[in-house]
């Protein structure tokens, strides 16, 4: 999946993409059909865009009570800008304890 427009270089738009690893747990694993995968995003993509891309590709995410994206083993705000090498994890509603 490719998201966003990239940035203008030498007067024309070219797309700069990065591939990030994505892990899925709980019901998210069922929705995406696997535990680990990769997605491509344009540079400067935010968590909001990651969530939008996921929901577009897998509409079942819209049926969840909510879901968060953790980056490198920590929760991140929706405004967080993902970087090359980040490990993204889809966190559906937790239910430990």
């Amino acid at each position, binding site marked *: 999946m490719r998201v966003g427009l990239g940035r203008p270089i030498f007067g024309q738009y070219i797309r700069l993409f990065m591939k990030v690893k994505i892990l899925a747990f709980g019901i998210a694993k069922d929705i995406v059909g696997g535990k680990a995968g990769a997605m491509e995003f344009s540079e400067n993509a935010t968590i909001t865009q990651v969530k939008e891309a996921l929901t577009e590709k897998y509409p079942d995410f819209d049926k969840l*009570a909510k879901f968060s994206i*953790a980056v490198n*083993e920590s929760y991140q705000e929706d405004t967080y800008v993902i970087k090359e090498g980040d490990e993204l*994890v889809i966190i559906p509603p*937790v239910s*430990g*304890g």
Partner: protein
Amino acid sequence: MSDIDIQISSKPLNVPICYDYVSDHRAGGNALFVGTVRDQTHGKPVVKLDFEAYKPMAVKEMQKIAETMAERWDALKISIHHRTGTLELGDIAVIIAVCTPHRKASFEACQYAIDTLKETVPIWKKEYFEDGAVWVAAHP
């Protein structure tokens, strides 16, 4: 500095291990919470449970909870163990043990810990009924 013992394990959890960890001469109050697998949910018989954890992050989030217990309630020692894998009825899913100089703080810290664990720690519970299974809390 407080002593903190965080564990996520696929083996059965053990109450005396957590109690012994937090036992301390400086403490007068020790509170423990033990979460176990109930035989029903909203009246529907439960057959078994599966717990899945995003382990490295779950450990970090449990560590944060313990650090908050130490800061806010002067907890001296804290032990939080969570089970993963398949659990039968009555099995222990989680143990939280904490000791504080005075008793009221031990209750408050322990209750904070389990309430927060259920909100922030990336662990997911799948409940198996006779006619199917659901990921708990996934849907509104």
